[in-house]
């Protein structure tokens, strides 16, 4: 069974953390992952940096630019991660945009992920239809879970469809916004969280975008299986480097 599915079966609310590979320093990737696991994080999204991250706000774009300027590439990330399964056992996903994966070759990319022990991919700009028609078979061949996004604007009909084709969790975007632009949840978000919860979907939902602290984590996980923190953690790394990761995580739980 895929590590993501195992984790989703655990009777707890999941904390997932996103960070940009190669940031703050090019070779911080492995140490960040190990520290996050030690601090009790349930799942990690490793951001593959892209020059033009459309769905991300300034924090993640800036960290991506820094990582790229330091020389981060797909090949380098795979090299950094090649022994990661010797020390880390929680689910690991790669989150990135489609173009760098396409240039690496989708089959090659998936094969590398499987060799390393990556469990799933999140590709915001790969449309559901393109995935099901052209790439699903390749992902499945390498045992990779593809995670789809839904937003407050997604119709019920489309949510049902996404639920149908999801074999891991659904990434629930908290609000109509790019990453890192929220400062708390109001009634609108809560109504949306409730609406989705009441749909009784088969795939568990993990909420992302706008989770930055203990309060927003609690609010989100009241209605969903877990929550993802991205920009707030990247900001923490900017200020503190890799040293005080456990402090950041403890403050969330």
């Amino acid at each position, binding site marked *: 069974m895929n590590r993501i599915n195992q984790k989703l079966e655990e009777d707890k609310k999941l904390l997932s953390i996103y960070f940009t590979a190669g940031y703050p320093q090019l070779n911080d990737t492995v140490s960040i992952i190990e520290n996050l696991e030690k601090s009790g994080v349930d799942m990690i999204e490793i951001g593959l940096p*892209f*020059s*033009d*991250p*459309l*769905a991300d*706000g*300034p924090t993640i*774009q*800036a960290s991506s*630019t820094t990582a*790229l300027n330091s020389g981060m*590439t*797909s*090949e380098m990330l795979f090299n950094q991660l090649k022994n990661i399964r010797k020390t880390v056992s929680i689910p690991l996903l790669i989150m990135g*945009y*489609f*173009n*760098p*994966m*396409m*240039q*690496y070759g989708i089959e090659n990319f998936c094969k590398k992920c499987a060799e390393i022990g990556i469990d799933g991919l999140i590709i*915001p*700009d*790969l*449309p*559901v239809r*393109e995935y099901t028609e052209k790439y699903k078979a390749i992902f499945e061949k390498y045992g990779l879970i593809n995670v*789809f*996004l*839904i*937003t407050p*604007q*997604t*119709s019920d009909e*489309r949510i049902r469809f996404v639920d149908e084709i999801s074999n891991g969790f659904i990434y629930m*975007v908290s609000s*109509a*916004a*790019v990453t890192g*632009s929220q400062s708390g949840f109001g009634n609108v978000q809560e109504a949306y969280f409730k609406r989705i919860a009441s749909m009784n979907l088969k795939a568990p939902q993990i909420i992302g975008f706008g989770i930055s602290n203990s309060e927003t984590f609690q609010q989100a996980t009241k209605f969903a299986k877990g929550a993802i923190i991205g920009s707030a953690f990247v900001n923490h790394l900017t200020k503190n480097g890799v040293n005080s990761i456990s402090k950041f995580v403890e403050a969330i739980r």
Partner: protein
Amino acid sequence: MNYFVDENGYYGQFGGAYIPEMLYPNVEELRRKYLTIMLDPSFQKEFQELLKEYVGRPTPLYFAKRLSEKYNTKIYLKREDLCHTGAHKVNNTIGQILMAKRLGKTRIIAETGAGQHGVATATVCALMGIECIVYMGEIDIARQAPNVARMKMLGATVVPALSGSRTLKDATNEAIRDWINNPVDTHYIIGSVVGPHPYPDMVARFQSVISEEIKKQLLEKEGTENPDYVIACVGGGSNAAGAFYHYLDEESVQLIAVEAAGLGINSGESAATSILGKEGIIHGSKTLLMQTEDGQITEPYSISAGLDYPGVGPLHAHLCESKRADFIAVTDDEAMQAGLELCKLEGIIPAIESSHALAVFKKKEFKKNDVIVLNLSGRGDKDLDTYINYFKL
């Protein structure tokens, strides 16, 4: 071979809608409605009336006698430079502002590189009394002060794009992010035949008035609708799409797309996407784009701010791959000389984008009896500083 968009939004292998889920409802709404709205007679009536009374269409198809003599062939210039605001861009913004109104949108966003599309968007927003926000790279804002001032005078808010390379591609990213943040009340007026389906098709249709007019005008002047060649410059490719549109299926009409080679194709400072680009995804579209081996989008260069886009519309990628159009790359120097030549021979100061198209006459020989239509996409007023610096005027 089919050169028009198919039901899935593709031109051959290019196109599609590679967008984050956050944009799906907006783009899907547009996809479902754009043709119905555009084909509605009341829409067409309003659109045609504005093109006539406000833009000043039809633009002349002018026989360039002295230029023709010089190159010993028959050259017609389609005078898009005479459109209101100085370029073909306004054909599309008029169409899209009417589209936005019918979609019930109350806020307009746009990206701009040199500022031409930004001005054309600010213009139609002023005309309709709709809020207008234009994203423009911080570097471009510094380079294109007069156009920034024009947009402000027209009531638009100009927002600097501070991310990435701080030019056109980043302004486009910022506009897309704005749309993600404002999915309900906002329409995004893209300025070229780029972006996710249905934008490339919608913009091409709005610009197709160019070739529609050429056909009628050429019939009057030459007794045939079809020239031997149509020539247009390509950045994203909207003026070329408009000039080629009604000729795509006329295989006897040869299409020439002119790209900016910048300082030279192999100089590292170029925007010749058809040669330097590889298939990939940019701004929601699968097309040819300039990128690193690792798939990071690179910054192109051309002396012409309207041609330095790292991609090309999916229609043009298809025309290139299928060899329906001949792609020719022209350097800064070749374009600048061709622009000056048009000034001296015809008394027309062209935009530097259009000067690239004009440079084809030095690179390719035409027969005496060939009938050539060159789309003169814009006028050179906006480029005066560049001309002054280049020629030390």
